[in-house]
């Protein structure tokens, strides 16, 4: 073989080897199934060198033999500047951190966390992060008893002493028919979640049992109009797999689904004025019709006021008559810098100011004029 040919083969092989090596060393995180060493997340006996360890002042033993419970992995350094922490072969989203411009799609509990100058109006008061809010906010606003949820029924009451948890009956993630938050999440992190269809906790959008959607691989860090979370909505209210239904499981009166608040609490699509701002309503259902409405002015997906889709793919750029308003169009799920966990400062949202493309005015385009 001529030397030049051999050299070309060698260079090609070397390049291939380099790319392959880099690929192998990169954390693999196409889906959220936990990978890597067991020790990164689990401690078998809550014992290290004969002592019981604490994680950020939290004492165990921790359920599911986790190292520090949910926050042991997802709240590793609240005052740190990392919104995603690489641990072994896993990339772990941080729900509380102090990274500038690093808030993930759910927001950042930093704004509501005790010890960090919290403002309880800015987030959900989750056990382990914040103290329980005093009445009446110790119970979810708009709470309805025994509503139908994926897998069964929601709680028949919300005891006044019961603080919101990450998961379980009195939380958001996992199977909410199971009270124990770790029992509700059991096995989810190790499930094959390559298809998010809501059939199991592991196969549900962000482990929100029963909810469908498309998960952005970086939890919307540096997301773009064509690369974002794909939220599921349903104008017909024929399913419980929408992201807004999840919110409605606790805040029932705010959702028009007949299982929840229904039209009597929220109003009718097409032919009535709303009693409350609707969710899971497409622009087709607005009062007076879409054609000629201000909503025609919202044409490109805006991360500040995202919309849901019937079959979300996470790369939609167009907003049209079938795009669906959801709870997360205005709110974050965890906490935000603004009161009511809003995506923007409602106190500064102003009609007629010409301030287009921001806050409420992303959808209500004519009100900016």
């Amino acid at each position, binding site marked *: 073989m001529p030397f030049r040919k051999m050299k070309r083969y060698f260079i090609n092989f070397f390049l291939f080897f380099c790319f392959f090596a880099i690929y192998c060393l990169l954390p693999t995180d196409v889906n959220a199934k*936990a*990978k*890597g*060493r*067991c*020790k990164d997340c689990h401690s*078998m*006996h*809550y*014992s290290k*060198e*004969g002592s019981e360890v604490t994680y950020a002042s939290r004492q*165990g*033993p*921790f*359920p*599911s*033999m986790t190292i520090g419970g949910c926050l042991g992995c997802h709240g590793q350094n609240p005052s740190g500047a990392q919104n995603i922490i690489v641990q*072994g*072969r896993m990339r772990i989203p941080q729900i509380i951190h102090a990274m500038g411009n690093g808030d993930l799609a759910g927001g950042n509990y930093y704004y509501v966390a005790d010890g960090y100058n919290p403002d309880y109006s800015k987030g959900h008061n989750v056990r382990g992060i914040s103290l329980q809010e005093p009445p009446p906010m110790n119970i979810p606003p708009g709470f309805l008893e025994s509503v139908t949820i994926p897998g069964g029924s929601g709680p028949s009451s919300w005891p006044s002493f019961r603080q919101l948890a990450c998961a379980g009956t009195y939380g958001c993630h996992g199977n909410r028919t199971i*009270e*124990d*938050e*770790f*029992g509700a*999440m*059991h*096995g989810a992190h*190790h499930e094959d979640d390559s298809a998010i269809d809501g059939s199991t906790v592991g196969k549900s959008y962000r482990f929100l049992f029963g909810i469908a959607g498309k998960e952005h691989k970086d939890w919307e860090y540096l997301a773009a109009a064509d690369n974002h979370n794909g939220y599921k909505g349903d104008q017909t209210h024929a399913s419980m797999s929408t992201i807004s239904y999840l919110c409605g499981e606790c805040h029932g009166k705010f959702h028009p689904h007949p299982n929840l608040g229904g039209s009597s609490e929220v109003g009718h699509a097409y032919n009535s004025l709303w009693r409350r701002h609707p969710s899971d309503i497409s622009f087709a259902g607005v009062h007076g019709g879409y054609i000629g409405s201000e909503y025609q002015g919202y044409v490109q997906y805006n991360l500040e006021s995202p919309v849901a889709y019937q079959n979300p793919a996470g790369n939609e750029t167009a907003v049209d008559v079938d795009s669906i308003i959801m709870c997360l169009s205005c709110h974050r799920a965890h906490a935000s810098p603004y009161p009511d966990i809003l995506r923007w400062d409602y106190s500064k949202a102003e009609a007629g100011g010409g301030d287009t493309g921001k806050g409420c005015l992303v959808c209500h385009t004519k009100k900016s004029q």
Partner: protein
Amino acid sequence: MAIVGGDCDACHNIFPGMMEKTHTGKAFQYVLKNEFCVNCHSNTTSDTIKILGGNRVPVVHSTVPPINPLAGGNFFYVAKDFGDRKGHNVDGITSMDMKFRNLPPGYSRKSDPSYIGYDPQKNLMCAGSNGCHGDRNIEDPFASIMGTHHALDKPLDGSTIARSYRFLGNTSATKGVTGIEDSGWNRKGSAANHNEYSKSIDLICTGCHGDYHNTEKKTGAWFRHPVGVPVPSRGDYLNYTSYNTDAPVARETLPAASGSDINHDRDSVMCLSCHVAHASPYESMLRWDYDKVSTEGRGGCNICHSGK
């Protein structure tokens, strides 16, 4: 464990004073007590079964790297300068653990069936109230195991110390461990031929590490890895179908002979599913290197948790 026979001197005449006459009913006042067990059950070669006075003697402590350590592991890994985390620091083999300082992690007095109880002021011994083998209601290791090597050891029903699995008799007031003893101490253990454990093996561990043996009925997730609970017949556990000596299970009902079957919902996870009793090459006396067990591997935790 066969009754020991053969040449007395092989075991009893190797230390001064051992064959002297003593008072009836009292234990011999041997010299170098802490080393007596160790000397018979040690070897200076890598063989883990040696011949002594015509008897096959299981080697629990090798002074050179052992080949095919027995079921309990080999104290070689803790006797040398490998660190205390690889084995039980038994007196006569190695010095006191500098972290635990003789206090068993997770010790719970109420879980210790011994009248005397474990005394952290004293070293861990092979037998007796500060050890694992023999009658733990007797402090003196020799007295606690006296006569067992020459007593009838069948059936292995836990009724006496000698009739307890590997002389793990708990106490005179409690039943000993039952099981099926592999004649080669698992030196050549395989899926079909191996020790068979019953759930009673966990009680030996519980005696000193009671807090790790949580038997409370919980509705939620486990706080510590459970033992004494059946391998579930669901999910990834169903992939564990052939007995693996790297992750053995305890039988609900002991079979007539060892077998390779795994009976979900009946065979239980036990302490020895993950740990060895004496010492191993790995930290926490594990059967594998926990630091390297990964969801993408096959061994270790993945033997049971295959779906992860």
